[in-house]
């Protein structure tokens, strides 16, 4: 018998604190796969954000810097500029990247900083109990929009992959999902490509991953996974929005 699937070496062999069915764990695995693929585990420095993915250093077998809420792109800028030989990535939720940290991500992309940003969009603030995020869908109920998001009052969900793609400094920007085997394979390829851009010094690479938050959506894992397909993908279209050669 030959092993065809096992845990990547860059991912520590420990249990995670994530809720059942939460796709943060899957996205961690895809990021670890990319590090294994390029053989960069020893030279990679992750920059963690504030949110449910705050324990990056517990799960990845790499060096990790903890950034203040939303500031991961600023910290990653410093790390990469000080150590250009290293491979640097940020891993941020939508509350972190698209609300408190909007300025940092926009300017890092606009400066064309040569690191990889992973953006996990689960349409809510997971860690703090399900408040409305800039990515919360119209009509979506949350702790702070109990009647559903009202776009007249709260504005529209932000399509960050498109926003980032519009900046001249961005080399690569995509949106992927992990709700089916087919989408997971495409997500794995996109994440590898985003690392490849950095390793070839091609500039800023951004991957938005649509993810579920069964706990704060008040659904079981299967229903939450289905919601990604039926509600998220129609608004947050999957695709490649920038791919500079």
């Amino acid at each position, binding site marked *: 018998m030959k*092993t065809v699937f096992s845990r990547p070496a860059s991912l520590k062999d420990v249990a995670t604190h994530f809720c059942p069915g*939460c796709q943060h764990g899957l996205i961690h695995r895809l990021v670890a796969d990319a590090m294994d693929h390029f053989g960069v585990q020893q030279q990679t420095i992750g920059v963690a954000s504030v949110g449910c993915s705050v324990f990056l250093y517990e799960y990845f077998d790499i060096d990790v810097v903890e950034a203040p809420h939303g500031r991961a792109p600023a910290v990653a800028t410093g790390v990469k500029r000080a150590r250009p030989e290293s491979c640097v990535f940020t891993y941020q939720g939508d509350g972190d990247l698209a609300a408190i940290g909007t300025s940092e991500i926009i300017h890092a992309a606009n400066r064309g900083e040569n690191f990889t940003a992973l953006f996990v969009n689960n349409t809510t603030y997971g860690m703090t109990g399900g408040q409305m995020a800039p990515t919360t869908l119209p009509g979506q109920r949350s702790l702070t929009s109990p009647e559903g998001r009202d776009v007249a009052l709260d504005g529209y969900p932000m399509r960050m992959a498109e926003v980032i793609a519009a900046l001249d400094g961005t080399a690569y920007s995509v949106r992927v999902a992990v709700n089916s085997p087919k989408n997971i394979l495409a997500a794995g390829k996109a994440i590898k490509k985003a690392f490849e851009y950095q390793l070839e010094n091609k500039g800023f690479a951004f991957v938005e991953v649509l993810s579920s938050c069964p706990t704060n959506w008040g659904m079981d894992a299967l229903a939450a996974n289905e919601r990604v397909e039926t509600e998220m993908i129609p608004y947050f279209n999957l695709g490649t929005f920038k791919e500079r050669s």
Partner: protein
Amino acid sequence: MPSMKVVIDEARCKGCALCTLACPKKLIRMSEKLNRQGFLPAVFPEACNQDCTSCALCAQMCPDVAITVQKEEKGGAQ
């Protein structure tokens, strides 16, 4: 006992059932017995070993990386 193509780490499994959704052959079922974490874990029954194609889609889908997949080498030795 033949060696199993799909091994699910019962202690790691959180019972989300996403792997059952991914398997094109519907070979994985959920246990009725709680694991140590208090979840009803996924089970790959021994009787399904023969039908399993080792495609690893179940493992790809698992958020907790609780599944390992093996494939028979050419020649069919087990």
